[in-house]
């Protein structure tokens, strides 16, 4: 029986377990194992990492032996835009303020959809959402998010 990859999903998860297990194990080596009666901080993590490594090997072996389904195409565009939009929100929130950060998040993430088109309806919905969040979270619940960010405070200071 020729060895070939029969299940891409098993291969992927097997590699993931091996990666996490070996990282977990090598880092935990510094923590002190102790012994069963007096467990060091490294005891439990090392046991878990060890089990993860074992499972990784089993899963890899399975990927060569048992037929499975291939990994479906990764929607890179959607994934990257969604992630980017959240990161932009994080970067802009304190500096530029909530409305700008939200607008960036909405505009960038909406690009991930095939169907989104920037029209009057979309812009109105965006303004509505920004207004809603400002009223509910900042005014209502008192979440400390600036409405006008630090970058503009010189210009627009109240």
């Amino acid at each position: 029986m020729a060895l070939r990859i029969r299940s891409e999903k098993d291969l992927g998860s097997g590699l993931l377990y091996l990666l996490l297990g070996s990282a977990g194990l090598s880092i935990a080596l510094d923590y002190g194992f102790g012994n069963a009666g007096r467990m060091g901080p490294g005891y439990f993590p090392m046991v878990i990492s060890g089990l993860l490594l074992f499972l990784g090997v089993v899963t890899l072996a399975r990927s060569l032996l048992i037929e499975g389904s291939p990994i479906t195409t990764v929607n890179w565009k959607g994934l990257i835009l969604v992630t980017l939009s959240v990161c932009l929100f994080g970067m802009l929130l304190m500096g530029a303020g909530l409305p700008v950060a939200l607008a960036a998040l909405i505009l960038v993430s909406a690009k991930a959809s095939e169907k989104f088109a920037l029209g009057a309806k979309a812009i109105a919905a965006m303004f509505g959402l920004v207004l809603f969040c400002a009223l509910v979270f900042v005014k209502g619940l008192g979440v400390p998010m600036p409405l006008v960010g630090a970058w503009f405070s010189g210009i627009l200071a109240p």
Partner: protein
Amino acid sequence: MEMLSNLWLGLSVASSLTNLGYCLLGVFLGTAIGVLPGLGPVATIAMLLPLTFGLPPETALIMLAGIYYGAQYGGSTTAILANLPGEPSSVVTALDGHQLARQGQAGRALATAAIGSFIAGTVSTLLIALFAPALAAVALQFGPAEYFALMVLGLIASVVMASGPLLHALGMILVGLLLGMVGTDVNSAIPRYTFDVPMLADGINFVVLAMGIFGLGEIAANLENEGERTLLTRKVTNLMPTREDWKRILGPIARGTALGSVLGILPGGGAALASFGSYSLEKRLSKEPERFGKGAIEGVAGPESANNAGAQTSFIPMLTLGLPSNSVMALMIGALLIQGIQPGPSVMSEQPALFWGLIASMWIGNLMLLVLNLPMIGLWVRMIAIPYHFLFPTIIALCAIGVFSVNNSIFDVYAMALFGVVGYLFRKLDAEPAPMLLAFILGPMMEEFLRRTLLFSKGDPSVFLTRPLSAALLSVAAGLLLLVVLPSVRRKREEAFQED
């Protein structure tokens, strides 16, 4: 009669104007978010959780419970009207419910779901009031060895109940346990896996993890198949079931309630398994099984009652043992911890108002669902009709603000983005994230109980087998694991999760 006085105390707590108001708000918001396609109860609760931070503990928990029931009912609504089950437990509701909707009978299906849920909710609330104190009394006898064994059983059970491949569920558990280790070790005060990032000293925030994996990861996955939606926007009419319907649905409701109540208590059980089980049961008992899948009202009544009963009784292990039996309960425990309450058997005796107030509010929440949702069905239909490309940026925005508000930390926002990517990759690999969240919550507790057990026994692990209760729990866990490895059981399990 102690039960009655306890329930009375609970009712008096739950029916204070504030608590009633927050319960109503929770049910309303939970349904509103829950009907949005692609958002299950876990994502809904994670998103709305920050709203409860400023509230007193019992009010917060009452509101969260309301959100949970609302989200679950909202999920059924979407399953029936748009054939888009937001979570595993409403998958089977979609089978016959959506067929009914296509035949113009959406009103009957929705009303049946609501009535079934309410009856199931009422019965299981009484069951909780009856059995929770007894279970808590038993739990007070538990030592660390028993707790550890129980957690092992819970994790193994969640592997068995997970719908994906077994091996991947096991892997997800280990990944979750490892993620749970991040942060400062309580015994030695040594920071573990923190990479010198001060924000990780307290560990990964579970809201961040849940919102990233269940919120963002889900969205990225949903974006792959945009446009495959068949919403029935026709007006929903004929809400009340006919006399003929009542005859058909009462049996399934009773059986679904019984099945769901039992399965909900089991670790790893809860709503999803209950609804699958009830559907197969009704199909088997039916005189005309060929009607199932083509719009059989029994196929809505049974599973909907079962999943509500299961959702309810899964509170029992959470409240009495401090053990989450599914990811929703894991979120509830997280919420309790944020409120400074350590869930466990002592909650009932030390915080009777909280405990009984929550139980009474379960019933009130179910009543609200019944009276609130049927008249408001027009609003829910309109919410389902919002196109996804308007919806998902809104969800991302609410997740980002929600995560930020937990600790007012920008770092958490970035961490959520990272877990979104992780969650998407897990989905690509067929690895179900629910067991991981469970293990993440249980991890630190398990380590602590293991450490204490072995400290007392001076490192001798045989203590797990010489203490009868822990030995029993562990052998059940081992038995479960063996069972699912057997090929015949495995085939059955796969069948049960592919009922279509």
